[in-house]
Structures are given as C-alpha cells and as structure tokens.
C-alpha cells in the first residue's frame, strides 16, 4: 500500500469527521490547520482509521501523531506488519 493509497482512504474519514466534503489532505496538515480538530475528533478519526485499515494503534504511537503524514507513516507500518507473509 503506497502513501497515496493511504491518503486516498484517509480522505473520506476526515471529510466525514469534519463534515467537510471539500477537505483535501496533505502530509503536513496538522490539528492547527483544520478547524475543530480537537482531542474528541482525534478519537473519532483513530477509531475510523482502525476500522478502515484493520489495524490497532498502540497508545505510544497515537501520542506521537502530529500530522496527516504521521498517520500515513504509522498506517503503512502497521498494515505491512499485519500483512500475512
């Protein structure tokens, strides 16, 4: 799964969470760039991401998430780790 693939699947999650169909994600995008991206929304995003990618994020990984790019990196790592060999 490429970073672009992940970003494409993340986009509807963010659009639904923030109720904004025009939202365009980019790796540097952080909470300060999106109105309403608070801790409550962050939980919503994480739960949706875990469902979408069939992964489970650990607390220490979640605490290090600062941007969309961090999501992409973490999802890529967890998805490849959970893929059957």
């Amino acid at each position: 799964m490429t970073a672009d693939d992940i970003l494409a699947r993340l986009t509807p999650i963010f659009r639904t969470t923030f109720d904004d169909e025009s939202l365009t994600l980019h790796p540097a995008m952080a909470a300060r760039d999106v109105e309403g991206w608070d801790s409550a929304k962050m939980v919503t995003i994480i739960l949706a991401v875990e469902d979408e990618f069939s992964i489970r994020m650990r607390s220490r990984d979640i605490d290090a998430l600062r941007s969309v790019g961090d999501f992409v990196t973490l999802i890529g790592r967890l998805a490849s780790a959970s893929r059957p060999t």
Partner: protein
Amino acid sequence: MLQQLGKLARAARWKTEIALIRRRYRWIERFSALGENCEFGMVQRRLGAEPLDLFRFSCTRAGSLTSAVGEGLQDLYDPEKVDVRLMPRVKGPPVYCVHAPSYGFLFYALESGGRPDLEAFMTSERRRLAFLTRKFMEDCEDGAKIFVFTARHAPAEEAAPLRDALRRHGPATLLWVSASSEKAGAVEAAGEGLLFGFVDRLAPEEQANDVALGAWKRVCHGAIGLWEQYGRLGGRHDG
C-alpha cells in the same frame, strides 16, 4: 567489573529511552490525569496540550479508582455496565456524562449536538470510553507517563494504594498533588513510583479552569526531573 559494565549499559539504555520519550511527547503531555476532577486536564489545556487520556475530564474518587485500576478497569469495556445520562452542574446547563456506576466514575461526554438519535450517541460514547480505557491500560504497562491525581478530598494515605494499583500493570509513576501554600511548586519522591507535589491552591470546585498555573508548571517540571534522574522512580535506579 562485569557489574560495572552492566550498570553502564543500563544507564546508556535509560538515556536512549529518555531521548525517545522526549521526542514523542511535549513535556506536559508526559502526564496523564486521574481525577479527582478536571483541574489537571485544564492545566494541560492552558499549556496548549490536548492529550487523549481517559480520566482527563472525569470525576473520580481515590478509593474506587484504586480498586478499579487494580482490576484493569474491566467494567469500562462492557457496554452493559456504563450508561449515558444528563447530569446537573454546579454552574451552567446540565451536560451529558458517561456513568460507570460500579466504579462511581463520571466522564464528561462529547456534546450530543442536539442529536435526536440518543441511542447512536450512547453507542459512540461507549466505544470512545472503551478505546480510552484500552489506551490508559497501555500507558500503565508502558510506564512512560506520570499519572496525576489531584487530591482535593482524598488524604495522602490513599496515594500508595493507588500507586500499587497502577503498578500491577507496569512501571507506572503516580504524582499525587495537593494544596500547600508552604510547599507550593515542590515535588518530593516518596518511594518507588510515588511523588507528592504541591500547589498553593486547588481550583475552585465550580471553576476547574481557575488553576494555579505557575505552581503546576513547577510541580510538573520537578516531577519530570526526578523521574528522569531515578529512572521511573524505582523501575530502575541507574540514572
């Protein structure tokens, strides 16, 4: 000689771990609130941090917290054992809270946003609670965070049992904070995994955001210093 080498290796590992922790968290995010109320959550907000912590906006009591944490907060995963209800406030309109009656915990819920579908709202709140519980337990196991209990009502004798309950799951450290005008800003190590911190005053009950920010900052910086110096305060004394 071998003993000395082992000690040096452990000290080097500890330094590496501290560097990783410093990279992962901003300093104020290295703490996780335990209650009794929202005061420490407000301290973190005033300092620009919004960590995802289970008890950040909750009402807890030390005794029930101790027994609940000791048993791994099992009831918080069970939708049958938590409900969502409107609760009156000292000031302002009532708010939705998630209530765990077996533990006596109250967690502030998200705004329902006037949602007509209360059942869906309750389902999402229960799921949110289960997620935050899972995260809290991982933090206990991990040992990288310092848990903060703001002791408005609880006597200091309740600190050690709470520390013990946290430590059933990992090398956790408890920072027990109470009011003391003489010791404001000070932190004292009180044995394995336990710190006592003091602020000049606690926030008024009806206004949890009216915090003694200066003293809280000194307490938190002091706690991090002790934690790093002594290596999780008893987890490893190699620092």
